[in-house]
Each structure stands twice: as structure tokens, then as C-alpha cells.
């Protein structure tokens, strides 16, 4: 952290480039600036190459990546995934007749057309598709002469009232009200299982293409007088990809806003353009490298460019400031660029490294999406060191900056106090500081009380990835209300590889777990071989309810299991060794999930034998339970680690535990308030909030690092608290504000994302970046009044005049040698 290698007095004002000794500076500096053209050329070539790569970057929404891959539940699921087809990929299209019930010839005709089109969609597992128009959907009835039955749709259906009456009768007889026909019979469902790979081409399913086709079909048929509701994994993935593309557009908005802010800061078209161009270059490189490494854009990684851009711009603008002041004083642009490089390369590297640490800490979370985010962000920050620390000064040495802006930069740093600075200085008055600190304590205590209600996991109904009022979740609500099974499914995987599951003991044990699960609040109903097999046993005994049982006779039992397998092949594999027990939950709140987990684990502990195992967990709710456990653990690890890192970083920088306290306490207040904000906004701790915690603290420390290094340096020189803070503000106040505002603006655009967790991240990060800025400007001086007072004997008769306020703040990041401690 010590970078006093470029004493200020070695950087005289040099007006003509010929007067400058090109052999001065470090070897590295000479290497760069004596080969400027080659560097620019190389960067241009790399940019063009990576831009082509970036254009070919794929887009996808992988749910696998959002699962905690080494959690035992997920391992159990993956080990048995091939046998758990029903929990995989399917689409449910509900076709509603808004002007009556389904016994309407026009409705039935439209349904037929749509059914045939859906049948032909790519990736559809056609033999398992079900609807009123699929002949596999049958009714059966026991008569005096044995079984009678046929397809639910009468084979001679002609739209006549008689045919419709027959259809109505068949629907009743088949018992599909609640599953394929809505409870109120105003809509019916087309159930479409999907293959992971296209049967013809062998290509993996393209969710974006499928979604586009589905939306087109939906639009086409809604014009024909039906309403369509679609849910299912593939639709959700498609909607996420769609949302992701929309968020990419927000990048333009964020870039424009940030550009405006930088222009307002520099008032120089040339330097604004340069900073923006270099930061964009970093984004292009980062995206291009992602493609080369083999990544695609997903809902998490799409956020990385925003962060990289904002960090690049705020750090770049700050470098620009130094160059402007040099040029304003008459130094030639080439020399000014070299001076800046000389002064700032190490400092900038350190600052960016601190940011990278914040990202790197994320990789302890056992969720691939977050690990990818950590890696990609770290790569991005590494790229920034090239584009913003090397390329930017080199380019500046060619372009220079606008003369007006340079003059303005000189004026603004001549020590005249801005009213905002005057206002902020009052916080060094102990009478004011006392109230600030009391207020902070009160706010923190309040925050702590509220944050005790912080929940783990997703709290809203429907697909948590999307907003509650999204089309998908409105469709989900409709289907939940009009059909019997909820979309929150928690599956227990029952395995018996050696002795199979088609025996009385195994089925009875499954029945017992189902019975306990059904008794649990939050469980609507359950489904398994056992509960599905019971009525099928009765079917062999004239359908009488007295035979809704699990019979010990292997012949009776096997027939019922074979019938389950025929009707619902997803409920038991062909080898009869793996079968799920699916609990349909009323919601996916963390308490609901953990009560199910607790029950199933207790059951497994008392019923698992060497052969027969009840394993957790599959289904969206099962995976979410595993994610919640991982997230709850990672939340504390993450907080602990990120604070440890920040404290070490501060300690190395300040060499004073008091200064560490002054820097870290405002961050802790922000963390508490952020948790309280999560409670108030109904956001639970989840995969998406973990990066927020790390970034909020990891990047939040930047402000205090800037302010306090300068502050301590002045204090060391004998300034009073007020004077030290005044000078710190003059040097760094604008920078702190600039970083806070650009970062907040960049992430705030996520708030409009259709992907809910991105919006949550945007709100929380914007809050943390802004509040950390307030903390640095208000709480830091108030704390300093008490914790970082100059020692009585230290106050020198006169503060030595520092050669111009135009010093770069980083140049002052010398190790403070004496602080009150």
C-alpha cells in the first residue's frame, strides 16, 4: 500500500514534449509510453477480435447453475434424475373459454387446432402428451360384463349437442376434472412433456426459440377467442432469457446515464469520451473472453458488465482529474499522461484489487452461477487494470483534454470551499457528531430489530425468478386456482436398487411417509406409487372404495403398480427401483420447506434400511430447500469473510485499529440497514442477495479508504480534525460522490428488470452504494472526532502547505506514521 515512488517534486510542469526526459520513470512506464503506438494498435486488434467473440456469446438460463451442486440433496437428485422424468421438463397449456364452459363447439374446434400445432412443436415427447384431443386420455368404467372404456373425446365427435353431451359424460367418467379439465370446466389443459434433446436433430432444446414459437401460437389463438395460460420449466426458462435480453438493453440506459454524470463531472467531451470508450473496451473484452472460456450470458452474469463499466468509469474519471490539473497548469498532454501513470498506476491497481477481493470472496458459495459471477467479475476487474490504467493514459497522451475543462479543473481545486463541503464539515463539531452518532446508533438498533424478521428463501407465490405480476406468475396463479395441484413440488426420492420397490413393504413405507406428509401444515396433498396405486387396486375389484388399499398379494400389487406405470410413467422407473413421493406445497416459504425437510429426514432416519432409502430431494421445492440451506450457511460465511478481508485491508492501509473502526463501522450500519430494507421490501436471503452483501461491503470500503488515507495523512502532519477532514473532502469528496452515484445509477437500472432477483439486487446494491457514501461523508467524520483525534503534542504550529490541492488523492496514500492510537 505504500507507493511513494514518485515524489511530487520530481514532476515539474513541462510545457513542451521535447523538454521531457523520456528515459525518466520506471522501466514499465518507459516500456508503455515509448511504444505508445504499438500498444494502441495491439489494444485495437484485441478489441476487434474479442468484439467478434462477444457477438457470438450465447444466452441461456440454466437452472442447474443456480443449484448448490455439491449439496447432498442435489447429488441425490442428479444420481437419480434419469428415473425422475416427471419432475423434469414439461409445459402446461391451459386453454380457457372466456365466454362459457368447454362444452362449446367453437372452443373444442379451436382446442383441436391448437393441440395439433403443439403436437408438432420441436422437442415434444409426443407419446406422453395429454389433452382432450389426445387418444391416450381415456375413460374406463366397470360394468356387469367387465371393463368398458374409450378415448375421452368421442371417436365420432362432430360438434353436435349429442357429441358434446357424450364428451361431458366421458370427462366425468374419466376423472380428469381437476387435472386436465378445470374444476369449473371453463378451461382444459394440454400437457406437453419435453425431451431435453430434439428427437430428430439431437440438438439440445433451444428455450428461446421454443418461447418465441409459443408466444406466436398464443397470440394467434387468443385472437380466435380463447385465453391461454402457459406454465412449465421451458416457459420459465424462455421468459428468463427474454428478460435477460431486455436487461441488456438497460445497459445502454445505464451507459448513457453514467456518461452524463461523467460529463457533468469533467465538462470535457474529449475526456468523457475517452473514459467511456476505455470502460466499454473493458466490457467488450470481458464479454469476448467469456465466450472464449465457454460461458454464456445468464441472468447473473449479465449483470457483470454493469459493474465493470461503472467501476471503470468512476476510477477512470478520477485519473482524468489529475491529468486535467496538470494540463491546466501548462504541462504537455504527453507528459501529463506519463505523470498520471507514474502517480496512479500502483494506486489504481491497489484500488481495483480491493474490488476484486470483494468479488473473489463470492467464490466460496457453492452455487455455480455465483462462482461464475465471481470469476467473470474478477476477470473484468483484471481487464480494467489494462484498459483504464494503461490504455487510458496512453490514449490521453494523444488526445489531451479540452482547454476549458482543464482550466476549470484548476479553478475547482484552488481551495475555495463549496457550500456542500462547508455543510459536511459541521460533522467534525463534537456537538453535531454526538447527535450524528446517537442517531446512527438509534437507526442501527431499529434496523437490528426489523432485520430479526429476515427470512431465508423466496417469499412470494409462483416462480420466484419472475415478478409476482409477470405473465408467467399470473398464469401460474390461474392454474393453481382452477386445477388441483400446486406448482411447488417437493419430491422425496425412494430407491431400492437391490430388492425393487414393487413389494408390499416398500409401497407401505411410501404410504406411511405420504400419510405423515399430508398431515403437515403447508402440504396440500401428496402423490406416489402408494397413493396412486390404491385406487388402481380398487379398479381390479369393481372400483369399490373398500378396495382402495395396498394389498399384500404380489399379483394384486404388481398389477396396480403396472397400471400406475402405464398411466403415469414418471411415478416409477421401468426397473421399479426408483420412485418419487411428491408433496404439493401451499407455498415455498422457508418455514414450509424446512418443516417438510425435518419430517422427511426424521422419517428416513427411522425407516431407511441398507437397501431401501428415502432420499432428499427433488422437485423445484426440494431444490429450493437445498438452496436455502446453502444460502443460510453462506450468508454468515460471506459476511464473516468479507468483513475479515475488509478489516485486514484497512489495517494494512491505516496501521491503526481506530481507523479500522472508523472505516468499518459505517459499513456495518449499512449491512444492518440493508437487511432491514430486505425485510421491509419482502426480500428473503437467497442466491441473488449473497453477491449484494459481498459487493456492498467490498466496494463500499472504497469510500472510506479514499477519505481516511488523506485524512490520516493530514492528521499526521498536525492538522486538527476539522482541517484534516476539510482537506480530505477537497481531495476526495467529489470522487466519493462520483463513485457512489455512478455505481448506484448503473445498478439502479436493474430495478426495472422483469427478472425479480435482478430487481432485488438492483434495489439493494443501489441502496448500499448510496448509503455507504453517506456513511463515509457523515458517519466517518463524526466517528473521527472521537476515535481519530490528534495527540495533544502533535499539533504543529502551522500545517505545512501541501504543494497544491491538485494532488491526486492516491498519491497521499502514504502509510500514516502517527495516529492517535
Amino acid at each position: 500500500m505504500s507507493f511513494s515512488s514518485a515524489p511530487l517534486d520530481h514532476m515539474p510542469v513541462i510545457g513542451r514534449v521535447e523538454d521531457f526526459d523520456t528515459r525518466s520513470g520506471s522501466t514499465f512506464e518507459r516500456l508503455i509510453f515509448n511504444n505508445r503506438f504499438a500498444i494502441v494498435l495491439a489494444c485495437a486488434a484485441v478489441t476487434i477480435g474479442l468484439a467478434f467473440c462477444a457477438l457470438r456469446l450465447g444466452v441461456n438460463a440454466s437452472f442447474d447453475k443456480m443449484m448448490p451442486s455439491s449439496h447432498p440433496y442435489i447429488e441425490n437428485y442428479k444420481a437419480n434424475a434419469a428415473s425422475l422424468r416427471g419432475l423434469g421438463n414439461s409445459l402446461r397449456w391451459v386453454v380457457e373459454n372466456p365466454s362459457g364452459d368447454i362444452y362449446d363447439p367453437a372452443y373444442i374446434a379451436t382446442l383441436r387446432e391448437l393441440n395439433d400445432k403443439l403436437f408438432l412443436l420441436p422437442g415434444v415427447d409426443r407419446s406422453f402428451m395429454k389433452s382432450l384431443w389426445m387418444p391416450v386420455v381415456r375413460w374406463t368404467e366397470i360394468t356387469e360384463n367387465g371393463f368398458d372404456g374409450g378415448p375421452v373425446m368421442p371417436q365420432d365427435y362432430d360438434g353436435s349437442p349429442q357429441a358434446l353431451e357424450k364428451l361431458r359424460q366421458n370427462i366425468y367418467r374419466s376423472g380428469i376434472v381437476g387435472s386436465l379439465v378445470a374444476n369449473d370446466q371453463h378451461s382444459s389443459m394440454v400437457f406437453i412433456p419435453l425431451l431435453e434433446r430434439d428427437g430428430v436433430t439431437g440438438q439440445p432444446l433451444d428455450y428461446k426459440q421454443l418461447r418465441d414459437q409459443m408466444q406466436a401460437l398464443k397470440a394467434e389463438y387468443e385472437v380466435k377467442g380463447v385465453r391461454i395460460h402457459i406454465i412449465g420449466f421451458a416457459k420459465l426458462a424462455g421468459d428468463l432469457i427474454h428478460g435477460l435480453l431486455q436487461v441488456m438493453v438497460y445497459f445502454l440506459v445505464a451507459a448513457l446515464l453514467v456518461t452524463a454524470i461523467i460529463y457533468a463531472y469533467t465538462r470535457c467531451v474529449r475526456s468523457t469520451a475517452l473514459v467511456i470508450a476505455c470502460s466499454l473496451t473493458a466490457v467488450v473484452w470481458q464479454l469476448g473472453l467469456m465466450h472464449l472460456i465457454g460461458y454464456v450470458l445468464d441472468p447473473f452474469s449479465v449483470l457483470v458488465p454493469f459493474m465493470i463499466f461503472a467501476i471503470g468509469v468512476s476510477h477512470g474519471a478520477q485519473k482524468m482529474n489529475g491529468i486535467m490539473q496538470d494540463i491546466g497548469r501548462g504541462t504537455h498532454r504527453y507528459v501529463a499522461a506519463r505523470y498520471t501513470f507514474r502517480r496512479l498506476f500502483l494506486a489504481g491497481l491497489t484500488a481495483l484489487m480491493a474490488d476484486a477481493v470483494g468479488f473473489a470472496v463470492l467464490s466460496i458459495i457453492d452455487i455455480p452461477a455465483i462462482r461464475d459471477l465471481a470469476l467473470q467479475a474478477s476477470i473484468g476487474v483484471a481487464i480494467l487494470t489494462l484498459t483504464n490504467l494503461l490504455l487510458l493514459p496512453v490514449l490521453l497522451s494523444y488526445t489531451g483534454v479540452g482547454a476549458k475543462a482543464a482550466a476549470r479543473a484548476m479553478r475547482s481545486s484552488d481551495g475555495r470551499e463549496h457550500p456542500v463541503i462547508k455543510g459536511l464539515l459541521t460533522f467534525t463539531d463534537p456537538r453535531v457528531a454526538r447527535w450524528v452518532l446517537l442517531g446512527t446508533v438509534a437507526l442501527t438498533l431499529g434496523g437490528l430489530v426489523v432485520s430479526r424478521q429476515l427470512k431465508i428463501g423466496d417469499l412470494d407465490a409462483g416462480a420466484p425468478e419472475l415478478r409476482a405480476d409477470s405473465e408467467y406468475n399470473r398464469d401460474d396463479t390461474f392454474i393453481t386456482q382452477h386445477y388441483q395441484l400446486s406448482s411447488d413440488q417437493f419430491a422425496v426420492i425412494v430407491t431400492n436398487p437391490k430388492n425393487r420397490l414393487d413389494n408390499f413393504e416398500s409401497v407401505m413405507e411410501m404410504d406411511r411417509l405420504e400419510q405423515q406428509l399430508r398431515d403437515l401444515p403447508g402440504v396440500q396433498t401428496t402423490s406416489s406409487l402408494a397413493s396412486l396405486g390404491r385406487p388402481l387396486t380398487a379398479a381390479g375389484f369393481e372400483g369399490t372404495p373398500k378396495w382402495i388399499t395396498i394389498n399384500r398379494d404380489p399379483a394384486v400389487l404388481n398389477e396396480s403398480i403396472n397400471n400406475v406405470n402405464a398411466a403415469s410413467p414418471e411415478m416409477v422407473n421401468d426397473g421399479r427401483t426408483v420412485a418419487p413421493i411428491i408433496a404439493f406445497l401451499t407455498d415455498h416459504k422457508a418455514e414450509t420447506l424446512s418443516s417438510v425437510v425435518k419430517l422427511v429426514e426424521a422419517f428416513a432416519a427411522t425407516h431407511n434400511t441398507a437397501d431401501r432409502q428415502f432420499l432428499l430431494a427433488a422437485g423445484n421445492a426440494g431444490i429450493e430447500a437445498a438452496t436455502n440451506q446453502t444460502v443460510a450457511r453462506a450468508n454468515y460465511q460471506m459476511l464473516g469473510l468479507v468483513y475479515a478481508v475488509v478489516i485486514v485491508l484497512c489495517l494494512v492501509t491505516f496501521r491503526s485499529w481506530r481507523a479500522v473502526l472508523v472505516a468499518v463501522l459505517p459499513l456495518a450500519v449499512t449491512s444492518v440497514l440493508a437487511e432491514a430494507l430486505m425485510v421491509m421490501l419482502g426480500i428473503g436471503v437467497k442466491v441473488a442477495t449473497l453477491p449484494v452483501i459481498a459487493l456492498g461491503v467490498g466496494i463500499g470500503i472504497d469510500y472510506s479508504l479514499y477519505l481516511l488515507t488523506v485524512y490520516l495523512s493530514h492528521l499526521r502532519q498536525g492538522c486538527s480534525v476539522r482541517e484534516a477532514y476539510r482537506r480530505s473532502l477537497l481531495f476526495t469528496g467529489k470522487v466519493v460522490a462520483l463513485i457512489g452515484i455512478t455505481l448506484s445509477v448503473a445498478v439502479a437500472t436493474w430495478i426495472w428488470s422483469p427478472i425479480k432477483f435482478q430487481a432485488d439486487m438492483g434495489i439493494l446494491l443501489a441502496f448500499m452504494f448510496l448509503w455507504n457514501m453517506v456513511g463515509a461523508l457523515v458517519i466517518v467524520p463524526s466517528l473521527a472526532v472521537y476515535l481519530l483525534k490528534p495527540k495533544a503534542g502533535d499539533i504543529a504550529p502551522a500545517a505545512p502547505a501541501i504543494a497544491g490541492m491538485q494532488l491526486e488523492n492516491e498519491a497521499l496514500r502514504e502509510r500514516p506514521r502517527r495516529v492517535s492510537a
Partner: protein
Amino acid sequence: MNSFPEAKNRGLVRGCCAMLAAWAVSSGALATTAKDANAFQDTLDVPAIAQSKLAERSLIGIARAGDRLVAVGLRGLIMYTDDQGATWKQANVPVQSDLLAVQFADPHQGWAVGHDGVILHSADAGQTWTKQMDGRTAQAQARDYYEPLANGGDEAAAQALGVIDANYRSGPALPYLDVWFSDVAHGYVVGAFGNIMATHDGGKTWESWLLHIDNPDGLHLNSIRGINGRIYIAAEQGNVFRLEPGSQRFERIATGYTGSFFGIAGNARMLLAYGLRGTLYRSQDNGSTWAPVKSPSQATITAGTALPAAGFVLVNSAGQLLLGDDNADSFRMVSLDRYMRLTSVIPLHGSAVALTGLSGVIEQRLPSQ
């Protein structure tokens, strides 16, 4: 119409079973000695577990014990209410077998039967139950009875022994489908494959009554009920059996119907047999002759009763009530607000009935006739 592998031997099986003599039954359970603490525990060896939301459980039968209602259902559930169904309490039941029927001979003494061949008894109006008999003890006793005879050279006994072993190869797989006690001493249980037993000492001992019924084909005996001093069994293939007091035999009466009857209800004037696909037959001469009645629904009728005031009420698997007049001349259909497959019905005070079904128990006020 069933799939037991022994189906082709049915007649023989029943014939041999018929030779079983009186079985003395104790209620001692056969505890399995499990090496593995987590090993499977048979449904006959473990008590029913406590359940919540009792009023929404799958229930198959209901009976009155004085002012109390007692309902039985799947997984060993027996529950009772003393406030017309406002609150239900779960009884202590020693098994987890699916229970199918319950009846009280007086306000305290009651019996419940079901799968695994289980017969349960309560002496405290349904709060606690003890096991009088199950399919396993039945098998053991059958063996005890036949083995010495077979060893002594009795060929019929040897054959019976073989069939018994084949029949119970999969353990106690046969259920008793219904129970009827005329008083606290005398009662009958009937079940699948023509199984029938009687007791004359309140269930302390049960004796096989296969020799007391004219059922050589071993038809399922679906239901048994005493009406106007006579006892009737509703059975497969359109058969009704009537107990003749003199011979103490259940005589077979062909009704002309070919499907299954699931029960018989009756009042002073009329008997009504009901069954598959909404079938209704009535008899005005204590069951000697029967004639079909036009049914308003094709759904299988699962239970029915004569009402104390007048008329009949039947319930079906489509969740409908069929209301008939006192003579069972004509029936009309009433749909419930809440759909559920109905399994049993008993009259309550006034014009209300209690209904059980696969998703619970409800009290239903009947529309005036």
C-alpha cells in the same frame, strides 16, 4: 373381475375353508423380532398414528354408538364425535390396517373390520380398540386345526392345508368387508372370496361359517345387515343371502341381476338392494323375490339406509345422494356442494344424514320430500 392368482381355485379354496372349525382367538399380536431397528413393521403390528384434520380423511364406514358417531377409514383410523361432527377425536387403534366397516350392538360395544383380516372390538363406545382376530392368527389357527387331521390321514384336511398355505402365501391379504351384530353376543363378519365367520360370545371366539352359507363359488360377500329381524348379505353376481333362523344357514337368492350388490337397506315394507352402475332392486316379501327399480344415476351406489321418518337415502361414487320414497318407487338425485366419492351414510336427528367419503365426513340436511 379380480386378480388374485388363486382365482381359478376359488371354489376349492372356499370349500376347504368351509371345513375350518371353530377358531378360538386371542388378541395377542405377533411381534416381529427385527434385527434392524429400521426394518419394516407390519401394519398389524404397529398402532395407527395420530392424524390431524380428521374430518378430511378418507373414511369408509360410520356407525352410531348411543349419541356418539364413530367413523372408520384408511390406515387404522377410527374417530368419534360427541357433538354431531363439530369436533372429532381419534381413537386408540392397535393396527394400521385399512378399516372398512364399523357397527355398535349397544351404546358401548362395537366392532370394526377391514383389510389384513382384522377384527377390532371396543367396549367403551369406540375410544379404545383391541384386536380380536387378524388374517395371521386365522392362518395359524387353520393350520393348527388341519395339521393333526392331515397327519392322521385325512385327505380332505391335507388338501385344505395345502390350499390354506397357498391362500396365505402372501400373508393376511384378505379383508373382511362388513360386520353386523344382532346384539352384544351375536355377530357376523363377511369378506372377500366368500369368507364369513360368526360369534356367539361377543367375539371372544369366532367360528368359520363357510358351512353355513350356500356359496360354492366363493363370491365376494360385500355387505351384511339385519332388517326387521332377518339378516341379509349383499354379494357378487346379483346374489342376496338371507339367514334362515331355523337352519341357521344363509340361503342364496338370485335376484335376476348379474352384477355386484354392495348393500341392502330396508324398512318395514320394503327391502332395497343397490350396487354396480347405480343398480337398484327391491323386494316386498323379505327378500324372496326381487324386481328392478329405475335408477336416476349410472354411478355405483356404495351405501344406503332407510330413514327413520320415511324413505331411503343412497350415496354413490359420483358424490350424489339418491332420495327415494318409502316404497322405493322412484328416486331423485341430489348433488352435494362439495364433490367427493361417498362411502357410507347414516341417519342423524331430524332430516339430516351423516356422510363419509374419500375426503372426509359431512353432515347433510336432506331436502324435504
